[in-house]
Structure formats: structure tokens, C-alpha cells
């Protein structure tokens, strides 16, 4: 088996709120691997900690506990100066392209900035390279002299992606890159990401709450709930045979844009609990339709399903009573 490019081990992030001094347990022991050329899709509702995990992977945040090994080196403890050198390989694209770009910088300078910081190219070489990158994300090179405020949302997100791929990174985290874009623009960006996945060989972590989009771009799926991975597996397995009751309800709540699609919905009551006040035992026990007494006592471990490619954290799985019926 090939070595993973990045291995996250028992990642944990707790924040302390400034005034009330409560502990927000945003991420609680998340472990996963990422491989070159493969896309991991991370889904979960707001408050599931998925953005926090993404930021720890590229060391925008330091984990409270756990480690992130990139090419075998633990980057979670590196000093800032050393992390800056790693930025060549670790990049991120943010959710809101309108606020992700410096409004006072021209597009060309925005795309060139990573090269200025990480390469010894002359300014004319950088300029040529910026045009090349712009073309590779299908951005009209006429736009390079404009300011971000003059571009549309789709164009801005292309600039963000251009900036992220400028140094040919080995790993890119995409935090909801399409969720603030209009539908027809979104399709173009997804096309572009697909293209980059084939051409660059970078590992990608695609974070989204939109199951339809995640399904389109991912090889492997992680399902997060209250800062725990409750299910992980190959994309088709998780979407076709979800094992965890939460994954099943999440998939059933998705509305496909097709009036003829059958909806087998099993609805949940209530909402995701606060990460300040975590339920004991299984994090999903407060809403699970299949909950029973021993769910509330201890955190269920991840168990293998079939050959172990798919794993989920539910104590009912070994008994085979984990299916939520409509």
C-alpha cells in the first residue's frame, strides 16, 4: 500500500469562548489519510467542525491535540517560519470569493503573490507565469489588470483557485468553494476542479454541506457529526449503502433537483446539539431514531464494514440492526 501524503491522527480542537470561558469542543479525535491525486469529501452540517479540520490540515490552526503528518513530518508543532516554507505545498480555497481576495490588489498581483514569496522568478517571469495560470483556470487574461471588485463571483473563485495552484501544491483544501455561487457558475467551477484533479495530481480535501456536489468530485467520503467522524468510506459505498443512522438520514434529507426522484425520507427531530454541551456516549444519540440505552454510555468505536474500506461508528452495526426504516 502506498504511503499517505497526509495523515491526520486523533485531531482535536477545543476553543475557549472569550467571555463565558466555556469550552467549545469543535473537533474531537478525527483521524484520516489523504493520498496524492485523490479527493476526500468531508460532509457535515454547520457546527460539525468540518472547516476547523480543514484549517488544521493546512496549519491555519494548531490542533489542541493530535498530529498532522505531511510527508511523514508532523506539521502541527512546527514554528511559523517553517510552516511558511511549507505553504508551497499546502494551499486552501475559501468559501466566499468576494472576501477572500484583497480588494486593493489587482488580479495579476494576487495570482503572482505566491510566486513572489516562494520562487526566485524575475518579475517578468512571474508575469508570464501568472498569465499561464490564469489560462489554466479558464480566466480571461484581460481580467488580470482589474481589481477583485470588478469581477463576478465565478471569476473571483477562479482567481482564488489560480492563486492556490500557482506553486503546484501537493495538497489543496477546498472549504465550500461553490456554495456561495449561483448554480450555473457552480457547474463551471466544478468542471475546473475536476480538470485540476486530473492534471495536477494534488490531493484535495473538499469540504461541503451539499451532498450532491460532494458526490460529484470525491473518491472518498468522511461524514462528520459534532467533531467526530461517524462514517468513512469510498464514495459509492457511502452514498449507496450508508451504514450510520446519521448518514442515512442526512442522505435522505437531500432534495435532488428532479421532481420524479423518489424521496425515502426519515426525518430527524430537533437540531444538532451545541458543541459546548456534548451529549455523553454517541454524539448522535440525542436525535437517533434507533437510539437505545447503551448508546448513551460510551463513545462507539469505528467498526469495519465488509472488507474494511467502509467504517462507521455505531454499536448496532455488528448486529446488523443499523438500518433506519422509513
Amino acid at each position, binding site marked *: 500500500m502506498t504511503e499517505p501524503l497526509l495523515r491526520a491522527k486523533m485531531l482535536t480542537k477545543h476553543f475557549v469562548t472569550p467571555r463565558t470561558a466555556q469550552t467549545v469542543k469543535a473537533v474531537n479525535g478525527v483521524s484520516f489519510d489523504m493520498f496524492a491525486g485523490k479527493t476526500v469529501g468531508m460532509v457535515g452540517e454547520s457546527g460539525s467542525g468540518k472547516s476547523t479540520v480543514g484549517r488544521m490540515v493546512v496549519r491555519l490552526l494548531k490542533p489542541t491535540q493530535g498530529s498532522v503528518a505531511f510527508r511523514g513530518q508532523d506539521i502541527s508543532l512546527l514554528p511559523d517560519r517553517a510552516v511558511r516554507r511549507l505553504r508551497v505545498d499546502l494551499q486552501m480555497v475559501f468559501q466566499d470569493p468576494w472576501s477572500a481576495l484583497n480588494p486593493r490588489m489587482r488580479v495579476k498581483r494576487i495570482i503572482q503573490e505566491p510566486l513572489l514569496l516562494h520562487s526566485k522568478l524575475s518579475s517578468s517571469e512571474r508575469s508570464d507565469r501568472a498569465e499561464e495560470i490564469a489560462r489554466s483556470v479558464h480566466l480571461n487574461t484581460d481580467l488580470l489588470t482589474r481589481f477583485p471588485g470588478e469581477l463576478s*463571483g465565478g471569476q473571483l473563485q477562479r482567481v482564488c483557485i489560480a492563486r492556490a495552484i500557482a506553486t503546484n501544491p501537493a495538497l489543496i483544501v477546498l472549504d465550500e468553494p461553490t456554495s456561495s455561487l449561483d448554480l450555473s457558475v457552480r*457547474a463551471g467551477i466544478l*468542471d475546473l476542479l475536476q480538470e485540476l484533479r486530473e492534471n495536477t495530481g494534488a490531493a484535495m480535501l473538499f469540504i461541503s454541506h451539499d451532498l450532491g456536489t460532494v458526490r460529484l468530485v470525491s473518491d472518498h467520503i468522511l461524514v462528520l457529526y459534532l467533531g467526530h467522524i461517524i462514517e468513512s468510506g469510498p464514495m459509492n459505498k457511502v452514498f449507496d449503502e450508508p451504514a450510520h443512522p446519521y448518514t442515512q438520514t442526512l442522505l435522505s434529507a437531500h432534495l435532488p433537483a428532479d*421532481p420524479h*426522484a423518489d424521496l425515502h425520507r426519515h426525518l430527524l427531530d430537533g*437540531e444538532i446539539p451545541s458543541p459546548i454541551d456534548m451529549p455523553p456516549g454517541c454524539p448522535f444519540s440525542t436525535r437517533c431514531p434507533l437510539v437505545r440505552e447503551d448508546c448513551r454510555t460510551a463513545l462507539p468505536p469505528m467498526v469495519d464494514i465488509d472488507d474494511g474500506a467502509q467504517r462507521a461508528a455505531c454499536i448496532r452495526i455488528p448486529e446488523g440492526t443499523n438500518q433506519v426504516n422509513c
Partner: protein
Amino acid sequence: MTLLRVKDLHTHFISRNLDNEIRIATALNGVSFELSRGEVLGLVGETGAGKSLTAYSIMNLLKPPARVVGGTVEFDGRNLRDLQSDDMNSLRGSEIAMVVQNPRSSLDPLTRIGEQLVRVHTAHSDATAATARARAVEILGSVGIPAPEERMQAWPHELSGGMAQRVLIAMALMNEPKLIIADEPTTGLDVTVQAQILDLLRELVETRNVAVMIITHDLGIVAHYCQRMAVMFAGRIVETGNVNSVFDNPAHPYTRTLIDATPERLRDLKHKVHGGGAPPNLYNLPTGCHYVERCRFADDVCNDPVAMEEVGAAHFAMCSHISAVRDGWLS
């Protein structure tokens, strides 16, 4: 029975720029549609297409520099544009209710939610505070809020996003409205909560015979919760019809692009999605079809004025090349 009939509605943003020249953004350019009781209409389109503006124009809630400059809004036999502001005020919140995005910012943060519900009712009826309170408790319960009696005492900041949206829907229902306009009612809510809110709206249509207009950019919601849909582009409705009919036989190239761009279709599609591109400049719209700059099928004819054409039973589209688009879409 038709409850709401909007005819040829025009709304403009009229302002002066730094050079002191008058600039007019033609944001709505002749919006027409009808809505009956017991019906759910989905209004879809991209950002800036004029979806929310249509709602605000109907409700007469525009602030300068936006102004309705033409058209009629007929609601229950009355032309809303002729009403005095007092009459319009008494209509809003009683016969027409609005549920907006960002539910939390629509609630008064300094007033307990029970008090807010009571006020909405007593402002529009002769009900005493006690009967209004009883009604508020009943309605909070009916929108799926557990322990409504206790929740009456809650402050808005204590509510989660989903709960706040339920309270807003409860507020909309306090006076038995005939029409509910829901502007992106589930944007920002999680999918599991979204389903709960939409189910609630559907139940209201079935049990109370209200008419609902859902403004959204999510075609999934339209596909499963609306009977009819209207697609907006640059201030005009470019296609309207029954949801099944529009999804099965989209006629306007913009509608086709939208439907092709949904993740479900993208997975099956062999070809790339055509479309995207910037929204047209509202200060200087094309003379004919507004979609002309982004359309593969555009030719000189498209610069002439376009009209709605019937493409099926109660299914209309505003395009001069409907058959050419149908035959040539996949090429």
C-alpha cells in the same frame, strides 16, 4: 381562484452617481404571474435576477432609490398599488405575510418571542392580549416548537436558526394570512432542518389553504415542494409552468442551463454545461432578449422584442428559438 395577479411589474433603481448624472437600473422589467390559494409557486433565478425585489415590490416595502414605476398588483380583488400606506400596513402581516432569510435578524432582540407574537395579532385585530396569547401558544405548538408555553418566554438569541425560522413562520400565521411569501426560507439552515421547515410550509398549504410563494435558488426545493415554477432572469420571468413540465421539457436556454448545472444532472451529463457568465448590466439591458449575451443560439432576431410563447399546457417561455434550442442543445 386567483388570489394574486401581478401584471407587467416594473421596478427601477434611480440614483445619481459621483458625476451627478442620473442612472437608472431597470431591475424589474415586466414581471407577470398569478397565484391561487392552495398553490405553491417557486420563483428561481440567480443572484440579482430580481426574485426578492419582486416580493418587496408586491409588499410595497421598497426603499429609495428603488421604486415601482409601472404595472399592477392585484390581491384578492384589490390593486395594491392604489392602496394608501395605512391600508397597506394593515394588509401586511394580516393577509399577506412574509418569511425572510436570516430569521434571527428579523426578530426584535429586546422582546420575548411571546410578546412579539401577541403584538402581531393585536395590531391587526380587536383580540385581547389574553386571547392573542392563547393563540400564540397554539400556533407555536402547531409549527413544531416543543413546550410552546415555555418558549413564549424565550429571547430571540436563545433560539437556534431552525427554531427562529419556525417562530417567524408562527408570526406569519398569527393572523391567518391568505398569502405567504417565503424569501429563501431555508438558506443557511442544515439539510435536516430544511426538510422540517419545508414540510411545515407544505402542511400549511394543505390544511389552511394558503397560497405560498417560495423564492429560492435551490432547484431541489422547487422540484419537491412547488407545483408551479417561474424562472427569472434580469428582471423578467423567462419561463413558467408546472414543475414537472418545466423539468421534463425546459424550453428557455437559461432554464436548460440551470437544470443541467444541478449536481444530479452533472453526474449523468456527458457534455459540459453551457452558460455561466456575468449577469447583464441592468443599467444598459439588451433591447430584445436579456439572455442574448450568454446564449449560444442568439442571432439578430434576438435583438427584437420577445414575448412569452406557449410550449405546453400552461407552460410558457420567452424565447424566439424554442425549437432550435430543443433540437440543437446537445450539439
